[in-house]
């Protein structure tokens, strides 16, 4: 089970009592990644925003029944994923995360003997605040994640950014642990390769 953030239990109990400020804190924390995940599933930002709103309504309706056996984030992202899948089905699209491991950003990085063609750069001064091409590095990271293939993006948001447990992510997306590892590895390497190109 994902370790909840320190204040999460308190926020959830406050929200169950109808506390709007607790809602605002949870919304600030989770709405943007929820919309980005729904966009990966639906491939449409406007539909994703609608589905995220529907998920928040469902969270509000059911928060009193939320048992803290799972983290709030795992529960909320499960609601969101189910809502996005239902919407995709209504739109006549099937959603599968089993493939999408293609796209190896290191395909041309090695010579015939498996050694680096070019030595990876030394990232001495790589900090979140560092400005590159007019944006800080974290904005470049988010943009790189949003360019990933849908399956890799979904895994990266849930596991890489939100830190949900592997088993929780597998259940949510209907994929095996082996596939999760492949998708996560490809996604991390792709983001690293984009940063490497930016920082050279």
């Amino acid at each position: 089970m994902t370790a909840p953030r320190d204040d999460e239990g308190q926020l959830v109990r406050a929200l169950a009592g109808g506390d709007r400020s607790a809602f605002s804190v949870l919304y600030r924390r989770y709405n943007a990644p929820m919309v980005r995940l729904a966009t990966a599933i639906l491939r449409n930002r406007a539909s994703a925003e609608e589905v995220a709103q529907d998920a928040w309504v469902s969270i509000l309706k059911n928060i009193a029944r939320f048992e803290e056996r799972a983290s709030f984030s795992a529960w909320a992202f499960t609601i969101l994923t189910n809502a996005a899948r239902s919407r995709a089905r209504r739109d006549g699209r099937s959603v599968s995360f089993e493939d999408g491991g293609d796209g190896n950003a290191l395909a041309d990085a090695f010579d015939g003997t498996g050694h680096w063609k070019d030595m990876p750069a030394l990232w001495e001064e790589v900090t979140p605040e560092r400005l590159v091409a007019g944006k800080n590095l974290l904005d470049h990271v988010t943009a790189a994640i949003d360019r990933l293939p849908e399956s890799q993006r979904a895994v990266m948001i849930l596991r890489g950014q939100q830190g949900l447990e592997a088993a929780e992510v597998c259940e949510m997306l209907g994929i095996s642990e082996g596939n999760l590892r492949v998708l996560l590895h490809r996604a991390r390497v792709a983001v690293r390769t984009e940063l490497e190109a930016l920082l050279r």
Partner: protein
Amino acid sequence: MEWNVMVSCKHVSDHADPLLDGELGLWESLKLRLHLALCVGCRRFVKQLRKTRDLIRYSTRTEAEDPPEAMVDQLFARAGVPGEDPRS
């Protein structure tokens, strides 16, 4: 069982992720660590990947957005939840 301890840089790059996540078995982990002790390029790559992982974790904190009051009203109304307004 194969006892070849020499692995290529490509092999290290393929297994760097589970190495960072502590998911490799002892033998595979030893082979990678031996290679890393000898190879500057792979040491740099693993450091890059660790930094990338940390930046990815941190990146979600930059995108917080406040919900507009009218939207909160609408969501609470749709859910049929009265909601305690801190302004009142």
